C-alpha cells in the first residue's frame, strides 16, 4: 500500500476537546505577557482591550484550524499524520519501524482526559521521519493506540479490533525511601537553578526590585554587617537547603506512582514505565527491539551507592530522562531492573565481573587528566592575578584523583549474549549491549595510543548513542574482543598468528 492510498481505514481526527485545550494552552503561555500588559497599563484602555480580544480570537481560530486540518490513520503497514493548513505536512512511519510509544498528559491535558502520543521509530533512511506525535487524543484512545502500535504483527491483526487489555507483569515500583537519592542527582540540582532563574526573571520582569521587599532588604543589611565568611556560609546554606528541597519535590513529581511492568501482546511483549504526579507519563518500549541496558551513576549518586537503569533502544528521546526505566535507586535495585528487563542474570549483563585494562591505560588516563590541568595552572601563573596561580595548584591533585578513578572504572567483558563495557568517573556508565544488535566494529588508534600499545574498540549499534566504546585495551586483546563480539566478522582480516610481530 502506498502512503497516499485513498483506500484503507478511515482518517481519524484528534479529540474534539483539543478545541478547548489547545487555545487554553496557548493562552497559558501568553499569560505572563497579559499580566505585564495589565500591570503596566492604566486600566481599561479600549485599544488594549481590543488587542487582547484580537489575540484571543486568533488563538481560538488557530486551535480550530489545527484541529480541522490534523488527520491521522493507522493502516496495516503505516501510521500516517497530515497536519497544517497553509503549510501542509505529511508524515508517515512504517509500523514495523516503531520501537517506542510515549504517552504524556500534562496537567491541562489530564483535566480534560487527554494524552499526547509520541511514536518513536527507527529511521530507515533520511527520507523517512523518525517518529511523530499526536497532540492529543483521549486517554482511552491513547492507551488503545499504544497497544495497537506496538503489536508487532500488523498484517494479520485487524486494525479496527481493539486488542484485549493484556496481562501486566509487575517488575518494579517506587519505594519512598529512595527519595534519599534525589539530592544526589545533578539534573535535579540543575533543575533548581532553572527554577530559581525563572522566579528571579519573573520578579525582575514585574519590575520588582528584590531589595524593595522588606524582609530581603533587612536580611541583606544584616549580612552586609556580618563578616564575609559568615555571609558566604549563610548564602551557601540557603542555596543548599533550597537545592535539597527542590530536588525532593522534583523527584516526587517525576516518579510518583512509578511502576515498571511487562505486558504481553500479540507478536511480542513490551516494557512499560508509568510515572508522574502532575504530568503523567507512560513509556512503552518494544521488548524485541530492546538492545541492552545502561547503568548510569553520576559521581554524587555513585558516592551514595545509588544508580539508575536506562533502556538501550532506538526511538527513545535523547533528553536526560530518555529511556529511564527507573528513578535513581539503590545500586542493587538498578542491576535487578536491568536483569529483569533484559531477562538475563545480572552476572551476564551489567553486574558481570569485568576485566581490567592494561597499565598503559592508567598512564593515558592520568596524562589526559593532568596535562590540561597543568596547562591551566601555567596559564594562570603567567597571566592571571597573583592569587590565582597558587590557588590553581589545587587542580593538580584533583586531576590525579580523577585520572586514577577513570582508570579504576575502566572494564569490559564479553558474555554469552552481551558485550559489557564500563567507563567514566564523573558519570560512570556500565553498558550491556546485545551482541545481536551490533552493526559493525571500529578499532581506533591514535599516535599516542600506538606508542602505548593500546586501541579503542567501538561496537556500532542503532540504539542509544549509536556506538559504545571499550577504551584503551591492549591492541591484540582489542582485536580479539572485536572478533569475538560478532563471530567471524574480523577473522578474514586478522594477521595470522605466526606472522605477527614477535612478542616480547
Amino acid at each position, binding site marked *: 500500500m502506498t502512503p497516499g492510498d485513498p483506500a484503507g481505514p478511515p482518517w481519524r481526527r484528534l479529540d474534539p476537546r483539543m478545541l478547548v485545550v489547545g487555545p487554553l494552552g496557548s493562552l497559558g503561555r501568553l499569560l505572563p505577557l497579559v499580566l505585564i500588559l495589565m500591570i503596566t497599563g492604566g486600566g481599561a484602555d479600549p485599544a488594549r482591550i481590543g488587542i487582547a480580544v484580537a489575540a484571543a480570537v486568533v488563538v481560538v481560530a488557530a486551535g480550530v484550524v489545527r484541529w480541522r486540518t490534523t488527520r491521522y490513520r493507522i493502516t496495516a503497514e503505516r501510521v500516517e499524520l497530515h497536519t497544517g493548513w497553509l503549510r501542509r505536512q505529511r508524515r508517515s512511519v512504517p509500523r514495523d519501524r516503531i520501537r517506542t510509544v510515549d504517552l504524556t498528559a500534562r496537567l491541562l491535558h489530564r483535566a480534560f482526559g487527554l494524552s499526547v502520543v509520541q511514536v518513536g521509530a527507527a529511521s530507515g533512511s533520511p527520507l523517512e521521519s523518525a517518529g511523530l506525535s499526536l497532540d492529543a487524543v483521549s486517554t482511552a484512545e491513547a492507551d488503545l493506540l499504544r497497544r495497537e502500535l506496538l503489536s508487532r504483527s500488523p498484517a494479520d491483526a485487524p486494525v479496527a479490533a481493539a486488542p484485549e487489555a493484556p496481562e501486566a507483569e509487575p517488575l518494579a515500583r517506587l519505594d519512598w525511601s529512595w527519595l534519599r537519592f534525589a539530592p544526589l542527582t545533578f539534573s535535579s540540582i540543575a533543575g533548581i537553578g532553572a527554577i530559581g532563574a525563572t522566579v528571579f526573571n519573573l520578579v525582575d520582569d514585574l519590575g520588582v526590585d528584590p531589595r524593595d521587599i522588606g524582609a530581603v532588604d533587612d536580611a541583606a543589611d544584616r549580612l552586609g554587617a556580618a563578616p564575609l565568611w559568615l555571609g558566604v556560609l549563610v548564602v551557601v546554606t540557603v542555596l543548599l537547603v533550597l537545592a535539597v528541597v527542590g530536588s525532593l519535590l522534583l523527584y516526587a513529581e517525576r516518579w510518583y506512582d512509578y511502576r515498571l511492568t511487562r505486558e504481553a501482546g500479540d507478536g511480542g511483549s513490551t516494557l512499560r514505565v508509568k510515572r508522574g504526579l502532575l504530568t503523567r507519563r507512560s513509556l512503552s518500549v518494544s521488548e524485541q527491539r530492546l538492545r541492552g541496558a545502561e547503568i548510569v551513576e553520576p559521581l554524587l549518586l555513585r558516592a551514595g551507592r545509588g544508580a539508575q537503569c536506562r533502556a538501550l533502544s532506538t526511538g527513545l528521546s535523547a533528553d536526560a530522562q530518555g529511556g529511564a526505566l527507573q528513578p535513581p535507586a539503590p545500586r542493587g535495585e538498578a542491576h535487578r531492573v536491568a536483569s529483569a528487563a533484559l531477562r538475563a542474570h545480572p552476572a551476564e549483563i551489567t553486574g558481570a565481573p569485568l576485566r581490567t585494562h592494561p597499565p598503559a591505560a592508567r598512564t593515558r588516563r592520568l596524562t589526559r587528566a593532568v596535562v590540561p590541568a597543568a596547562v591551566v595552572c601555567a596559564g594562570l601563573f603567567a597571566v592571571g592575578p597573583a592569587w590565582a596561580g597558587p590557588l590553581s595548584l589545587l587542580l593538580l591533585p584533583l586531576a590525579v584523583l580523577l585520572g586514577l578513578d577513570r582508570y579504576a572504572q575502566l572494564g569490559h567483558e564479553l558474555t554469552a549474549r552481551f558485550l559489557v563495557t564500563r567507563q567514566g568517573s564523573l558519570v560512570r556508565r556500565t553498558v550491556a549491549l546485545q551482541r545481536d544488535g551490533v552493526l559493525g*566494529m571500529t578499532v581506533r588508534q591514535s599516535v599516542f595510543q600506538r*606508542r602505548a*600499545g593500546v586501541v579503542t574498540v567501538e561496537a556500532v*549499534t542503532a*540504539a542509544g548513542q549509536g*556506538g559504545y566504546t571499550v577504551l584503551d585495551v591492549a591492541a591484540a586483546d582489542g582485536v580479539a574482543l572485536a572478533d569475538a563480539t560478532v563471530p567471524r566478522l574480523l577473522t578474514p582480516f586478522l594477521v595470522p598468528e605466526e606472522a605477527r610481530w614477535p612478542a616480547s
Partner: protein
Amino acid sequence: MISTMNVEPPLRPPAHRVSPRAVRWWQLRALPWLVVLGAPQLVMLLTTGAPVWPWTLAATVVGVLAYLLVVPRILFRIHRWEITDEAVYTLSGWLVREWRIAPISRVQTVDTQHGPLQQLLKLATVTVTTASSRGAVKIAGLDAGDAAELARTLTETTQATPGDAT
C-alpha cells in the same frame, strides 16, 4: 621494552588502495589553509610593517607546503578498502587510524558522492551506512568508475538481506 615500541592491532591492511589521483585531491583540499592562515598575516604586514610578519608568513608558507608534500602521500599509503561477501572493511586516518568493519548483512544504503574537486579529478566517495548514527563507512578518493561499480555490487549484495538490527 614494549612500552617504547609502536604496537599496532593485528589486522592486515585491506586489499585495495584508493586512486593515486586522491593525492592531488587531498593536496587541493589543503590549499585553502594557505589563504586562511596567510591572508591575516599579509594584512598585518602591509598595515603595520612590523618586522615579525615576514618571518611568520614565510614559516606559514613553508609549513603548508611541507604538509602538501608529505601528508597526502602518507594518507594515500594508509587509506585502503576491501569488500568481501561478508563485510566492508576500511582503514583510514593519519593521526588517528581507524579500522572499520561493517557486515554486509547490516548495510542499509550505499551512496556515491562527487564534490566539485572530485569531479575535476574524476574521483568519488562511497558511503556505506548501517542503521547506526555512527556506523557509516566512507571510502574517499576512489576512481569514479570504480566507485560506480563498487556501489552497484554493494547494492546488489545488500538488497537480498533482511534485518537491520534497529
